């Protein structure tokens, strides 16, 4: 079923109008040696009935948050999603519209993106925000590229404690550029202002710091960004780039509160399903002065021919389709529908609702941590405040705990070994995330799981 509907008789009529006798004449320009003279080696067509069956049977091979109580985080969190979102987002007028270049025919998406931008700025305490990038890590890389572009400097300071994937994506992004990445080392799992002070100098373009960081710990953005800004005296004007978690922003100090120039983050917690890591939502907010340097689409409020308020894409001259090689980024297709999900989520939850999510996640995570600390041979791996995720040092390899948990209907967390955390990892370290969705019963079961795993 390929969704075409033109009958052979109709095709003949069309060919006659064009003035050819068969479809292959239209392809005549393709050089003979470039023609595919066999059938593609992929299976034959399937009916929708067969597809439904096949998809259900593949899906049945997976366990996940739908079958197990999920304590996994590491950048993707199992939050509650209001039921209406799936139904609303599947409206064809949202699902099947293109980028809103034709403003008159796209006021729906434009206004939604404008509201999204406004909500993100209010959530992060920043001045402006774009209408989405691919996902968190590449948004962070875009921030670094903007910093290079804005400052014309070469020193990229990155906190040791940003998530290893974010670091890799930044490394890849700058790999062909004449800049240098320097790691700001952590003490007890967080970076200190002193460590920043030591490395920031007249070549510094930016400093990137995540809070919560890759151990779930809350970093001292305020102190570190202040330390960074001291390098102004050394003749640079580096950008403070914060990587934030949008849920945490409703409870803790925001990037804006702490003096960030740019705030990037993964928007998945805002009503987006886990979906094996994508499609997610890259959030990008900044100070107003970077408006013309920012990547991604911006929607602005404007007027129509009758002077009535409406919305349109703004500052398109920053973008690749106008500016080509001089564009602020190559991004074109973004994550529009996910931004819509996020704005629906934020509107429905309201600030109080997001605050509830953040508070309950906080309290439940802290309850879990305190119960785990009571267990013999288990301890929190790092000191310091955390939000809703924390690292536990287990007396056995974390894999063992994870496997035991599965048999109990749990996904106990993310084992952060050298495999995924490199030097930062440890065979016995388990990252546990607790969202508002987890019940006390499930947390208690997790604690039992840890207790039992030790003895296996």
């Amino acid at each position, binding site marked *: 079923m390929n*969704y075409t509907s*033109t009958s052979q008789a109709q095709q003949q009529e069309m060919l006659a109008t064009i003035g050819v006798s068969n479809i292959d004449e*239209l392809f005549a*320009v393709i050089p003979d*040696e470039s023609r595919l003279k066999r*059938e*593609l080696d*992929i299976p*034959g067509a399937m009916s929708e009935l067969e597809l439904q069956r096949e998809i*259900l*049977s*593949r899906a049945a*091979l*997976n366990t*996940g948050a*739908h079958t197990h109580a999920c304590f*996994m985080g590491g*950048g993707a969190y199992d939050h509650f999603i209001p039921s209406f979102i799936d139904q609303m987002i599947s*409206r*064809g*007028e949202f*699902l*099947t*519209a*293109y980028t809103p270049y034709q403003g*008159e025919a796209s006021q729906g998406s434009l206004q939604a*993106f404008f509201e999204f931008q*406004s909500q993100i700025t209010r959530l992060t305490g920043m001045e402006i*925000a774009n209408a989405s990038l691919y996902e968190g890590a590449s948004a962070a890389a875009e921030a670094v590229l903007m910093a290079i572009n804005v400052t014309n400097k070469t020193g990229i300071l990155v906190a040791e404690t940003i998530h290893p994937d974010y670091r890799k994506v930044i490394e*890849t992004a700058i790999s*062909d550029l004449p800049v240098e990445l320097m790691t700001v080392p952590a003490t007890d799992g967080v970076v200190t202002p002193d460590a920043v002070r030591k490395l920031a100098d007249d070549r510094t373009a930016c400093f990137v710091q995540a809070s919560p960081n890759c151990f779930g710990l809350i970093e001292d953005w305020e102190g570190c960004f202040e330390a960074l800004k001291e390098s102004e005296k050394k003749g640079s004007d580096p950008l403070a780039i914060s990587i934030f978690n949008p849920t945490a*922003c*409703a409870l803790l100090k925001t990037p804006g509160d702490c003096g960030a120039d740019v705030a990037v983050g*993964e928007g998945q917690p805002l009503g987006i399903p886990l*979906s*094996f890591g*994508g*499609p997610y939502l890259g959030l990008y907010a900044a100070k107003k002065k970077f408006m013309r340097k920012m990547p991604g689409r911006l929607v602005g*409020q*404007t007027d*129509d021919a009758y002077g*009535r308020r*409406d919305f349109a894409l*703004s500052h*398109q*001259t920053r973008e*690749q*389709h106008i500016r*080509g090689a001089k564009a602020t980024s*190559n*991004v*074109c*297709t*973004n994550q529009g529908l996910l931004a819509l999900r996020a704005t629906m989520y934020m*509107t*429905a939850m309201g600030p109080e609702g997001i605050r509830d*999510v953040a508070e309950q996640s906080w*309290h439940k995570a802290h309850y879990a941590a305190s119960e785990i600390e009571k267990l013999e041979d288990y301890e929190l791996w790092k000191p310091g*405040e955390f939000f809703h995720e924390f690292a536990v040092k287990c007396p056995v390899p974390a894999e063992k705990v994870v496997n035991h948990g*599965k048999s109990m209907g749990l996904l106990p967390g993310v084992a952060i070994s050298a495999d995924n955390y490199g030097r930062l990892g440890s065979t016995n370290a388990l990252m546990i995330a607790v969202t508002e969705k987890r019940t006390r019963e499930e947390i208690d079961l997790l604690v039992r799981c840890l207790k039992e795993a030790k003895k296996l």
Partner: protein
Amino acid sequence: MSTVTNPTTADLNPSTREHELSRNEKESLPTIFEKDSPGARAIMFPKLDVPKTEIPASIGGSTPNWPAMPQLSVIRHYTHLSQRNFSIDGNFYPLGSCTMKYNPRINEFAAAQPGLAQIHPLQDDDDLQGALSLLYDTRKMLEEIAGLDEACLQPAAGAHGEYTALKTMRAYYRDSGQAQRSVVFAPSNAHGTNPASCAMCGAGAVSVKVTEQGYTDMDDLKRLIDLHGPDQIAGIMITNPNTNGIFDKYILEVSDLIHQVGGLVYLDGANMNACLGKTTPGLFGADMMHYNVHKTFSTPHGCGGPGGGPIVVRDFLAPYLPAPQIEKDEDGRYFLDYNRPKSIGKVRSFVTQFGIMVRCWTYIRSCGNTGLRDVAEQAVLNANYIAALLKDRFEMPFFDPSEGRFAAHEFVTVPEHLLAKGIKLDDIAKRLLDYGIHAPTMHWPIINCLMVEPTETEPKFVLERFARVLHQIADEIESDPSIVQNAPTSTPVKRIDVVAGDRKPQLVWES
């Protein structure tokens, strides 16, 4: 705020009413910031069932601030917003180069299954054999359709694919002692993402001329190779069929030439809809390419995204692709392979736009091998049919059946004769909206052009109506240009003043 709780005259005029908008409403719709219902909650949470832990003042922040709304108002808000959009589901959407084909609902069914939508990206491979099998199948099918060797599903969109491929290309050159190769050609009609991606990879994008007939200018290409020096050439980014809506006659010459100087050919796969099963990039010389699965493979555009930009490369480039790769061992077990020492690293967190790849799998399996070929044939037939219906009145520089010059899956028209009446291209585009038809792509690849791509999923009668409407608009222009100059009249807002928006930018709500 005042518009919400206090009566205003605007509020009482049926044509400017504020809160309850019928679907014929042509006025501004209040933003969420104008709809406060103090104390309202659309969603509530259970009572906390664990002891509380105090939040230290040193880290605590304040609650963000925007108006609360009851669930009914939330539903109405987004229902009303949706009613202000054109979409494939409601309108013919002949956007050139965007392949606005029908987005099958079985795709959405697939991606929404809890066993696919509720799996965590860091679960063990063994617990995700269904998910990995879908990705592995997708990888293999994309390799086959490309006629190339190894696919990488990581990139989130076409531009991201370009970026990933260029990074891969540069890593390959570095690794093979040719780090100096940094000149990347792109025809002057290339999509903006091509040079922009080059820039992000520290590669100089050099524009190559296009001939009057719309093909790559071989002479210019030769000249430029000489100019920059053969050993400086990293490669060329080429779109085929190209953005003039035609298969590039010289595609093999181009790739041979680039290969001769040691460069690589990158195929921008935005127009793969015209190639499916008829030709492969591998057969016309490409070494690497990206797909836009939101074009070719029917995943929805979602008001601008998400997309998917998987790339496929030849064997010798594969070691440099981002990790992880989706593999299958001898026992038929699927796994993620992170062990790629030469990899450029990562271009995103986690593995891929998973939900999009599920839709892509569903679509390809729905079409099947010959079904995909039929897609390409019908897409090309549809474009040529419209072109034939319009050619007497709409100048088409690259379409001339009498000379055997046909369109691929889209065509370009520069309606000079109509523009000479003093109207602007925009006027035609906006007038189409009045007929319920989305405007074609405009001013690209040529100034003052319309680029029309009907796709294969539109029935014949829709194509015919589109042609009739354009003829009618031509009539209108010839009889009374003000009709089109005042368009659109049937959309929720009148012609938007984009320039004013850029002058006094207001990017967030200010109350």
